[in-house]
């Protein structure tokens, strides 16, 4: 897992500046809304540029939904065996 650390300073009004390298890597623009997650003594900012739920709404519109998990795994296995034959 890639792990990079950046040292930033808290300015007046508790403002912080996102380092240029991160801004460019994640295409963060002025006006973007970011979410701060606080968990077990650490703060993280997951990059969410789009509503993750709306992003997948109807992406497989009209596809059958009644398939059971076991059947899906079985069919995947059948396909794999068939290809290897």
């Amino acid at each position: 897992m890639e792990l990079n650390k950046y040292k930033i300073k808290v300015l007046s009004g508790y403002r912080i500046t996102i380092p240029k390298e991160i801004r460019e890597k994640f295409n963060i623009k002025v006006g973007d809304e970011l979410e701060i997650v606080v968990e077990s003594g650490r703060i993280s900012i997951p990059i969410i540029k789009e509503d993750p739920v709306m992003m997948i709404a109807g992406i497989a519109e009209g596809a059958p939904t009644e398939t059971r998990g076991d059947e899906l795994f079985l069919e995947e296995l059948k396909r794999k065996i068939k290809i290897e034959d």
Partner: protein
Amino acid sequence: MKTRFVDAPIFIKWMAAKKKKLSLEAAISGYILTKIMKGEKAITTTLVKDEVLIWLSRYKASALHKFIHSLRALVYLEIIPPTLSDQEEACSNYGKYQLGISDLINLAVMRRKNISEIYTTDKGYSSAGINIIFHELSKEPNFKTFIKKLKNKGFKPNFPI
């Protein structure tokens, strides 16, 4: 609030939602995922994730990246890998409940994590004493707000609100 388990149909029904004829089940599924996005802690397994991936690869493989990206952004959803002990327990329970082997593995994970409630449309889980949470969510006040948001995005519900 109790942590709940998220089953594959929740993702599947939301991704298969019809814009011009949105079903109540699809809307509730989207509502559940929105609750999690907004901070409700929930868990699922890598098995559920893979089940949904296989389903999506069959019907809309070009959207696989979007699904994974969405999962990554759902930071309050913990995705747990089942252990061999979970699978052992599932094997011991095979035939006891109205559940297939993958559901039994999920059940073992739920029991290991002391989870007694599940977001699903699969009635089989109730045979194992798990409380299914689904249709009652449409009575929550925030559900109406969610439907309003969907309408603004062009969805047309085919159920009374």
